[in-house]
């Protein structure tokens, strides 16, 4: 691996013998990478448990059009998530979650543009792109708040029956859409991801604040934008997986 390092190595000494950075990254960036790896383990634990529990439940085997909510099988996600704000009563499967995905991808692009501006020491451009990234994050969180509210309160009409009783919406004990585990995993997985988005927005605001006050300009580099950018992209990455495994499959 010595050939991959840019550092000059005296013969007979390996890059791991000290004095160089074998991974070619600063301490802070490296630690962010390993933190993200450990965070990926946590999200994987949630998604793997979801996979285990979902595959142990009976799947719905019938036409998608004839699908009704039942406690006996796992629901088809596109029939659960088909509501869009201001279009009450219309069945628009996965449209809203598609909008949320688009918002998060766009905010990832504006983040990487802020990183690019930071490499050029362009303070005004970093400020501009950080503002867009923060707005994207807030927009995503607002969408999620609406989705959770709709999921918890349920439909306005139509009976949903749990063992002979009518139940609307969802909580951790029972829900109108399917087995209790379905809503539990929805709350835990999207909730844990949403909390990451929230903390990401806070970090992004901190970066924006330090950029505006000239902290990074005085420091001579914008590496903090890169580090927090890594975290923000990771949040987007997790959403890609949540989108596939919770909404599409």
């Amino acid at each position, binding site marked *: *691996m010595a050939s991959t390092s840019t550092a000059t190595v005296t013969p007979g000494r390996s890059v791991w013998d000290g004095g160089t950075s074998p991974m070619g990254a600063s301490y802070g960036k490296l630690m962010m990478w390993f933190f993200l790896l450990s965070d990926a*383990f946590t999200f994987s634990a949630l998604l793997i448990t979801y996979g285990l529990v979902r595959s142990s439940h009976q799947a719905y085997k019938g036409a998608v059009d004839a699908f009704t909510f039942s406690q006996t099988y796992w629901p088809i996600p596109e029939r659960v998530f088909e509501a869009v704000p201001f279009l009450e009563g219309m069945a628009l499967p996965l449209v809203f979650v598609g909008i949320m995905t688009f918002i998060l991808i*766009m905010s990832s692009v504006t983040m990487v543009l802020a990183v690019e501006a930071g490499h050029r020491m362009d303070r005004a451009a970093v400020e501009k792109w950080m503002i867009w990234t923060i707005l994207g994050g807030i927009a995503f969180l607002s969408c999620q708040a609406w989705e959770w509210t709709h999921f918890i309160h349920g439909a306005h009409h139509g009976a949903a029956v749990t063992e002979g009783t009518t139940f609307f919406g969802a909580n951790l004990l029972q829900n109108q859409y399917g087995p209790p585990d379905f809503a539990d995993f929805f709350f835990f997985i999207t909730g844990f991801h949403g909390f990451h988005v929230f903390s990401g927005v806070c970090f992004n605001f901190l970066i924006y604040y330090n950029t505006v006050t000239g902290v990074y300009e005085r420091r001579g580099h914008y590496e903090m934008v890169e580090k927090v950018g890594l975290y923000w992209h990771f949040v987007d990455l997790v959403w890609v997986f949540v989108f*596939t495994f919770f909404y599409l499959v």
Partner: protein
Amino acid sequence: MAHAEETSHVTVLPPNKEKIKKLWTVALYLGIITAIEFVIAFTMSHGSFKTFIFVALTIVKAGYIVGEFMHLRYETKVLFWSILIPIIFIAWMLVAFVYEGMAIGAVR
């Protein structure tokens, strides 16, 4: 005086047009792949083949985000594999536990 000194030393480089164009291209790919996923979600019948396509497209999207946006493709090989090898084990763990779940469902 100190403030004037700070600002005068900063040289702002012009935007790297090539790099910015590449970033927008990656964003376009991500958008197109998501659009394809939507089309497949409503045109194909449910089954393991459909799931396979979704997982494959998700891995392509993840590759673009981690490789280009997070810049991992351009890092040293040691760092690249330090991140990727644990993830390969995680992917296997997911497959193993999904099969385990099917077995639990079968004996229930």
